[in-house]
C-alpha cells in the first residue's frame, strides 16, 4: 500500500477528499437513522412536529427519558404488523427465486455469446433499468387487468371463459417485483459467469464430465458469489417495496412498505412508522451481515 501513500501526502487536500463525502454520508445517511431510532420511542401528537420529545433536558448533562417502548409493544401485539413482515419476507423470497430462475439461464447465455452480440444483449438487459420504474410497473396494469391484454388473448384463444382476476393479486406482485428487479439479478450473475476461466469448463469436459455435470460441478459453484450478490440486490429492497404492491397488489397483499407508507401518510403516526422502519431495518441487516461474513470468508480462502 506504499503506492497509495505516495499519491497524496498533502494533508489538507487529503482531508478534504476524505472529509467531504464522509461528512455528507454521516449527516444525511447515518444521522437520519439515529433520529429514526429516537423518534420510534416517542409518541404521536397533533402539532408540529407531530411527535413528542424523547429526552427532556434538565440543564447541564442531566436529562429525563420520556420515550417508551409503546410503539414496539403495539407492533408485536397487533397481528397486522407481524403478518405484514412475514408476508414481505415471503414475497421477497419467492420473487428472488423467480428472478434467479429467469436470470441465471439468461446471464449464462449472454456470457457464452461473443463480440458485438454480447454487448447488444447486455445493453438490452440494462435498458429497461434506465426507463422509469414506475412506468414499467404501470405497464403491467394494462396487461393484467380483467379487460387487459393477457385476459383478452386467453379469452380469444378459448383457454378461459371469463377473465381471470390477475391484477390486485399476490401473483401480480410476484410478477411486478420479478420484472422490475430482474436486471439487478442478471448483472452480478453475468459478471461472475463472464469472469470464469473457460479452460476450467474445458478441463472438466476433458476429464469426462458431461455438460450437466460440468454445470453442476464447476459453473454453478464458481458463480455462487454472483448468485448471492444478485439475490441480495433483489431480496433486500424487495422486502420494503412499496410501488409494486400498491399498484399491482391492491388491498389483497399486505407488505410492510405499504404499511409504513399508510402509517405515515394516512394515519400521520410518525413514531409508529419509525418503529415499523426500525424493525424492517433489523430484518434487513441480518442477511447483510451474513453476506459480509460470507464475502470475508471466501476472500480468506484465496
Amino acid at each position, binding site marked *: 500500500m506504499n*503506492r497509495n501513500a505516495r*499519491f*497524496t501526502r498533502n494533508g489538507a487536500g487529503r482531508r478534504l477528499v*476524505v472529509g467531504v463525502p464522509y461528512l455528507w454520508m454521516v449527516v444525511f445517511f447515518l444521522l437520519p437513522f439515529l433520529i429514526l431510532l429516537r423518534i420510534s420511542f416517542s409518541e404521536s401528537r397533533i402539532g408540529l412536529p407531530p411527535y413528542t420529545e424523547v429526552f427532556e433536558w434538565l440543564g447541564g448533562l442531566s436529562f429525563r427519558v420520556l420515550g417508551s417502548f409503546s410503539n414496539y409493544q403495539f407492533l408485536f401485539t397487533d397481528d397486522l404488523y407481524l403478518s405484514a413482515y412475514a408476508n414481505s419476507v415471503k414475497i421477497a423470497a419467492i420473487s428472488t427465486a423467480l428472478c434467479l430462475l429467469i436470470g441465471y439461464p439468461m446471464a449464462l447465455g449472454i456470457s457464452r455469446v461473443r463480440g458485438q452480440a454480447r454487448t447488444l444483449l447486455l445493453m438490452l438487459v440494462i435498458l429497461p433499468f434506465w*426507463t422509469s420504474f414506475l412506468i*414499467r410497473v404501470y405497464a403491467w396494469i*394494462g396487461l393484467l387487468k380483467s379487460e387487459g391484454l393477457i385476459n383478452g388473448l386467453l379469452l380469444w384463444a378459448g383457454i378461459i371463459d371469463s377473465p381471470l382476476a390477475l391484477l390486485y393479486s399476490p401473483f401480480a406482485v410476484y410478477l411486478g417485483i420479478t420484472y422490475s428487479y430482474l436486471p439487478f439479478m442478471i448483472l452480478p450473475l453475468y459478471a461472475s459467469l463472464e469472469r470464469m476461466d473457460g479452460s476450467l*469448463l474445458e478441463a472438466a469436459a476433458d476429464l469426462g464430465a458431461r455438460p450437466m455435470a460440468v454445470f453442476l460441478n464447476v459453473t454453478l459453484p464458481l458463480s455462487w458469489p454472483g448468485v448471492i450478490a444478485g439475490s441480495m440486490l433483489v431480496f433486500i429492497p424487495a422486502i420494503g417495496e412499496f410501488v409494486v404492491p400498491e399498484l399491482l397488489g391492491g388491498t389483497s397483499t399486505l407488505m410492510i412498505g405499504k404499511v409504513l407508507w399508510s402509517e405515515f401518510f394516512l394515519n400521520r403516526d410518525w413514531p409508529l412508522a*419509525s418503529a415499523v422502519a426500525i424493525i424492517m431495518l433489523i430484518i434487513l441487516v441480518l442477511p447483510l451481515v451474513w453476506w459480509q461474513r460470507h464475502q470475508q470468508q471466501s476472500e480468506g480462502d484465496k
Partner: protein
Amino acid sequence: MKTRLRPPGFVTSAMIFAYAFLYGPIISLVFYSFNESKLVTVWGGFSVKWYSELFKNEGLLNAALQSLKIAGLSATLAVIVGTLASVALTRFGAFSGRNLMQGILTAPLVMPEVLLGLSMLLLFVSMEQVINWPQTRGWLTISIAHVTFSIAYVVVVVQSRLKSVDRSLEEAALDLGARPWKVFFVITLPLIAPALLAGWLLAFTLSLDDLVIASFTSGPGATTLPMLVFSSVRLGVNPQINALATILILLVFAGIVVAGRVIRANKD
C-alpha cells in the same frame, strides 16, 4: 478460441422468453399510446391525440420541469461527492474509518426507499427545529435526499474505473514533477471521464425516476413528475401516461445510441 461448450438449446429458449418478458410490457405501453380509445385495451384506431393532450397538461409539464431541475442538480452534486469518495477509497490506502466509509457508501444500494425517505424526512424536520433550516421542504430537500442515495451508484461506477486506470500513469506524472492535485485534474480525470458521464447519467435517471423518497422529503409546494404520474395511475390506466412513457423511452433509446456513438468515436 471457440469451443464445443456453446449454450445448449434450453438456454437459448430461456433467453428468448426472458427478453420477451422484459420487453413485452414496454412494447404494449408504446403501442397503446397511439390508441384513439381511452380504454387502453381496446384498439380504437391510430391517433396521437394523447400526445397533444399531454403537451397541454400544464401541471404535468411543471412537474417535469421540477423533476429535471432536481435531477440535474442532484446528479451533478452526486458525481462530485461520489468521485471524491472513490478517490479516497481507491487511492488513499488504509485510513482510519475506511471500512465504515465503504459501508455507508454501499448501504443505500440495497436500502428500501421507504426507509431512506422516512429517515431523511425526520432529519429535515429535526434540523428545522435545531438550526431553523430548511424552513420549507421542496426541491432542495428532495435534491439532498437524491444526492445521498445516488452517491452510492456513482461510487460503484467511478471506483471500478479508477481501479482499472494504470497507476503508473499517475506515478509517471508525479515523477515528472506534477503535484497530486494537478495529477488528478490532468491525468486521472480525463481517464475516468467516461465513468463520470455514466455516473452522472445514472444519478440523473435515478432522481428522475424516484417516487418514494421524493414523496417523503417533498413539501406542499413541490410535486415531481413521478409523484404526479403515481397519483394518476393509482386511479387506473391513463393513455396520457402511455404517451409520456413512450416519450421517455424514446429519449432513453436516443441517449443510449448517442452515448454509444460517442464512446466508439473516442475509441477510434
